[in-house]
């Protein structure tokens, strides 16, 4: 429970649902007969509708980016340090929207939702959704909100990939694109990690071919394992070393057995167990597949600069020195392709020890760059 809502918080917030009754044809060729998009908004949309910022969340994120749902909440939204009155994305100036993507388990339609054709949860029958599909549904939400052009679209990691897709697919609908700790496509190593995570889930005896809802079980063990693997890739060797080293749990002697000896084991198991409480295993499968499939340059013979030929947005790309999941090199690929395409792009390579997770942390130089960038956007719009 939060002691007192801080003054620079957006405060108590609640989500909205946008029910779309029209069928949505997806990139995979299948369609969804109807779907729900869950989203949150912070700040006020101005009369000119020129101050709207869209946030795109990452793998385990959701629409709850800032503030608290109730005073009972232990923690605020996932990007609370970035969004709020006086924060880098200042809600006194900007109207901020964050929507949960399809395939998630956080409120938008996903594999745990009911398939209207069968009256049962979709499970693995849920159609494969892609980053492009997410962006198209966010465009539907933009129409619903009456926002013809976003002042900026912002995202980290998988969120950054959605921002790239936005700039490619809807060049007129965003003035600025902010792409943080992302990559233009996954490497073989990235896909490899995702596959190990999926196998951990699918080989859990409680998985039941994805129909575990009907069986009254959950592939808890597999999903926890997937999260433990993922968590290692989000941190740097350095950060893990600093946080845990070879400390034994409670300073105890080695057990010479297979129970937990080291703090790092205890931490990873705890992270895995916590994750299982609030995340659906099928969603994890679908979202990691969307990551694997993301490759906007594939339609242009692998030429990323040609892919960006039509972009109109001005870009800010940021990466973190210790991120090895989507290393600075991957962001530089994006920057160079944008440069070759003649787009205006800024690039910040931020010294940070916390690996991929850095994009969620209030690192001073990171926030300084974000603050400078959004102050400039506000100034351009006369906000």
């Amino acid at each position, binding site marked *: 429970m939060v002691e007192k809502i801080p003054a620079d918080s957006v405060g108590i917030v609640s989500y909205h649902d946008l029910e779309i009754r029209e069928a949505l044809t997806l990139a995979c060729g299948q369609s969804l007969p109807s779907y729900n998009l869950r989203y949150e908004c912070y700040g006020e949309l101005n009369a000119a509708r020129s101050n709207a910022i869209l946030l795109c969340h990452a793998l385990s994120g959701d629409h709850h980016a800032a503030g608290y749902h109730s005073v009972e909440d232990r923690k605020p939204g996932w990007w609370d340090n970035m969004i709020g009155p006086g924060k880098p994305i200042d809600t006194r100036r900007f109207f901020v929207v964050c929507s949960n993507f399809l395939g998630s388990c956080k409120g938008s339609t996903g594999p745990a939702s009911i398939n209207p054709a069968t009256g049962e949860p979709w499970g693995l029958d849920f159609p494969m959704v892609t980053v492009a599909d997410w962006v198209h549904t966010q465009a539907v939400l933009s129409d619903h909100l009456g926002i013809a052009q976003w002042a900026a679209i912002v995202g980290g990691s998988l969120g950054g990939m959605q921002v790239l897709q936005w700039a490619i697919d809807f060049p007129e609908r965003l003035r600025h694109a902010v792409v943080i700790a992302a990559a233009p496509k996954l490497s073989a190593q990235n896909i490899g990690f995702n596959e190990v995570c999926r196998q951990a889930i699918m080989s859990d005896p409680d998985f039941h071919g994805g129909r575990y809802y009907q069986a009254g079980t959950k592939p808890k063990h597999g999903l926890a394992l997937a999260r433990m693997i993922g968590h290692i890739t989000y941190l740097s060797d350095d950060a893990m070393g600093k946080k845990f080293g070879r400390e034994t749990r409670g300073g105890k002697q080695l057990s010479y057995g297979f129970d937990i000896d080291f703090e790092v084991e205890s931490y990873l198991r705890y992270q895995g167990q916590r994750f299982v409480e609030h995340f659906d295993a099928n969603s994890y499968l679908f979202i990691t597949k969307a990551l694997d499939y993301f490759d906007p340059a594939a339609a242009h013979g692998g030429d990323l600069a040609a892919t960006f030929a039509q972009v109109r947005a*001005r870009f*800010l790309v940021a990466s973190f020195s210790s991120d090895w999941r989507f290393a600075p090199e991957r962001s*530089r690929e994006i*920057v*160079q392709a944008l*440069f*070759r395409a*003649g787009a*205006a*792009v*800024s*690039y*910040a*390579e931020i*010294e940070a020890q916390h690996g991929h997770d850095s994009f969620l942390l209030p690192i001073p*130089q990171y926030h*300084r*760059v974000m603050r*400078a*960038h959004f*102050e*400039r956007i506000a*100034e*351009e719009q006369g906000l």
Partner: protein
Amino acid sequence: MSQPLRPDLQIIADWIRPGSRVLDLGCGEGELLDYLRREKQVQGHGIEVDDERLAAAIRRGLPVLQQDLDQGLRQFADNSVDTVVLSLTLQAVYYPRELLLEMLRVGREGIVTFPNMGHWRARWQLGVTGRMPMTDVLPHSWYDTPNIHLCTIDDFDALCHDNQIAVLERRVLDDRRRNTAANRVWPNLLGEVALYRCALRQPEEKK
């Protein structure tokens, strides 16, 4: 509304064609780039390694890439911009010759400016007082200076000659930032800042 540019930056700006593509290496807070974008509709990017200066340039709305010039420019394609600018930065890089050649590969033209160690005041300080020169453009003590590759105008001319670099234009500013007739007669003695516009010699021009 806009402040006048520093005299050396004004000369650089005057050399750049309106509407051209420019890369400003070590752009700092983007004073030159800001001017070029506003007054000459230049499509320009800056490169800056320093965190604070990068943020300041971003605050100005300039496209600026964080990169260490000592890593080279290999990610930029040949002739991908019209002009590459290196303003008062040549003396602070590890590999000045390689960077100069890289500039002229990436840009059709390069503009290089540097503090002239042949200036009479630097000569006086070293030759008569026996101390390492410290001037307005070289304000650091020898032990904490970022300026590790100092040269004179004659040295730079020799570098250009030896590397098939054509000097298209040269200006020299004295210690009051003036471009006087005397400067043109004794540039290596009176010039405190040297400004060069150069390009790679075409093969048929090679001596």
